């Protein structure tokens, strides 16, 4: 490690022992100065477009900054007014609650539940059935969100939607009557692939013989899951839940289907911020909501990294 402090010139070349096992042997003779140069372009982009926005959110959140009008020219610091206003705002609280429903329903129950169920049902299968099922699930994951959003609008259409035609209930307005349920099922459809693949990989770590033994001993599927499978994939379950919760929490795709409506009944936080800040022009207030979102993201990410660190140590 001390080598890294040596100057990046040829003089050290002969003196350098062959230390292939050391973590950073600087085999190319890059040297610290040039290495820093290699880092700079990436770091500049990250700094400008990731760090600055994050910090700026904090500043904007305590101002009364607006897109137009007097407060646009000279924004004033208003302290925590935006936050107290938000917490007292019915629309914000509803939005937070809807987001919670969205994450719980579509990520935790929908994606993780369905993803695990599919992976478990396919665990010892090879061949066409597995490929077809996995193929369709993955396809729904990789298609562009604005295409997929329209596919769902077409599917759920009141007058000519395929779903109503299949169920024989024309005139059922899913998106108007059940907007939240619609986007929860939509997001389940869209995101299950990740959980399915993660659990498929996890289930390969469960020894087949253990499951076989449990089955021969007469354990029901539920008992096998609880006593044999789950204890072995607990880490994967946690990882999966944290990641998909984080992604779902920040997901903007429901905007493409319901745009938060009708009557803000599907207005999850990302859509709420967009409408308040960029359509409504209340940039300061929107930034305060964004900062609350960042804090929630931070908590989830810290738990995830803590978990990751522990798994790396034990590995």
């Amino acid at each position, binding site marked *: 490690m001390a080598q890294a402090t040596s100057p*990046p010139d040829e003089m050290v070349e002969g003196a350098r022992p062959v230390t*292939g096992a050391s973590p950073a042997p600087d085999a*190319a003779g*890059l040297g610290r100065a*040039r*290495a820093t140069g*290699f*880092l700079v*372009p*990436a770091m500049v*982009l*990250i700094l*400008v*477009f*990731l*760090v600055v*926005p*994050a910090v*700026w*959110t904090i500043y*904007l959140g305590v101002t009364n900054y607006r897109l137009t009008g007097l407060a646009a020219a000279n924004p004033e610091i208003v302290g925590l007014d935006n936050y107290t206003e938000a917490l007292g705002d019915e629309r914000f609280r509803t939005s937070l609650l809807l987001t919670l429903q969205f994450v719980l329903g579509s990520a935790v129950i929908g994606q993780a539940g369905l993803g695990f*169920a*599919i992976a478990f*049902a*396919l665990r010892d299968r090879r061949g066409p059935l597995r490929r077809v*099922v996995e193929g*369709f*699930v*993955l*396809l*729904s994951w*990789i*298609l562009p*969100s*604005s295409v997929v*959003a*329209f*596919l*769902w609008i077409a*599917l759920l*259409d009141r007058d000519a939607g*395929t779903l109503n035609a299949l169920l024989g209930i024309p005139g059922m307005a899913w998106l108007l009557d059940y907007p939240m349920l619609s986007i929860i099922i939509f997001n389940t459809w869209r995101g299950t692939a990740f959980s399915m*693949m*993660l659990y498929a*990989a996890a289930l390969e770590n469960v020894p087949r013989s253990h499951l076989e033994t449990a089955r021969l001993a007469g354990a029901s599927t539920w008992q096998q899951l609880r006593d044999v499978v789950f204890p072995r994939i607990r880490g994967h379950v946690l990882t999966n839940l944290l990641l998909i919760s*984080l992604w779902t929490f*920040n997901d*903007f795709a429901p905007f*493409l289907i319901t745009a938060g409506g009708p009557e803000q009944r599907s207005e999850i936080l*990302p859509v709420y*911020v967009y409408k308040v800040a*960029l359509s409504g022009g209340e*940039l300061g207030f*929107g*930034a305060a909501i*964004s900062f609350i*979102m960042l804090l929630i*993201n*931070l908590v989830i990410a810290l738990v995830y990294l803590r978990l*990751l660190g522990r798994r790396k140590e034990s590995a």
Partner: protein
Amino acid sequence: MTVTTARPTPATDPTGERPTVAVRHVLARIGRYTFLCAVLGFFALPLLWLATAPFDDTPTVTASLPQFTLDNFRTLLDNPYALSSLLNSVYLAGGTAALVVTFAALAAYALSRVRVPGRDALLYGLLLLSSIVTGTATMVPLFELAFRLNLIDSRLGVILILSGGLLPAAIFILKDFMDSTPTSYEESARVFGASPLQIMRHIVVPVVRPGLATVGVWAVANVWGNFLVPFLLLRGPDKAPAAVIMYTLYTEGGQADLRLLSTFSLLYSLPVALMFVFVSSRYGFRFHGGIKR
């Protein structure tokens, strides 16, 4: 005596139990196939329309067996923004992928081979940052930033913002790749007097090519479907990528042109679908062992 009378009972028990185990086994099988069929139906149902409508003489929103025709694709040529938006998508995805791969490779190489002070903290910070700072949580400052830097309605602005967001994860992926490649080639090249840049170009790049390809494909897929950033930053339809044009096609007033909408969504989806088929047939699209992201 007691032993012999006791014998038949345990003997009948297993025979009495075996059928129930077998029955349960059959039921479980039936249950499993029913479930898988339901899953297949659920995931295939919304896709039906995408598969049929583009080829239907008179497409409706209901998925149905098409009156086969290829005429619908001609409507794409009539729309002023359809094809140019696909080109815009290519431009944005290509630009971002090039930037991300180049910058991430340089940074990952430096981090992998030289002990930059504070490296571990830097990597940890990057990973944390990239997962908490998302477009949806920072749309206000991003909009502000683009405005101040004169990047509103600029495709370069979209490329830079998307690159900034993708770089931390890309550096992470590539550093893993580089850590696992041996340094002996580089050492011997150095003995023969190759300069660091020569080593980078002629040895490191070829060796980590699979990693570069992975990151490139991943970046393209990310940008190709991204709606929010171009939606926020690009004003006119002439610069908008397919993601935004697709949205305006079905939300902008009046009756949506279903011929145009269906063919456009198919054409827009095809590149990522093909890329996915290519990657999965070449490298196998699944996770192995420890999952990081």
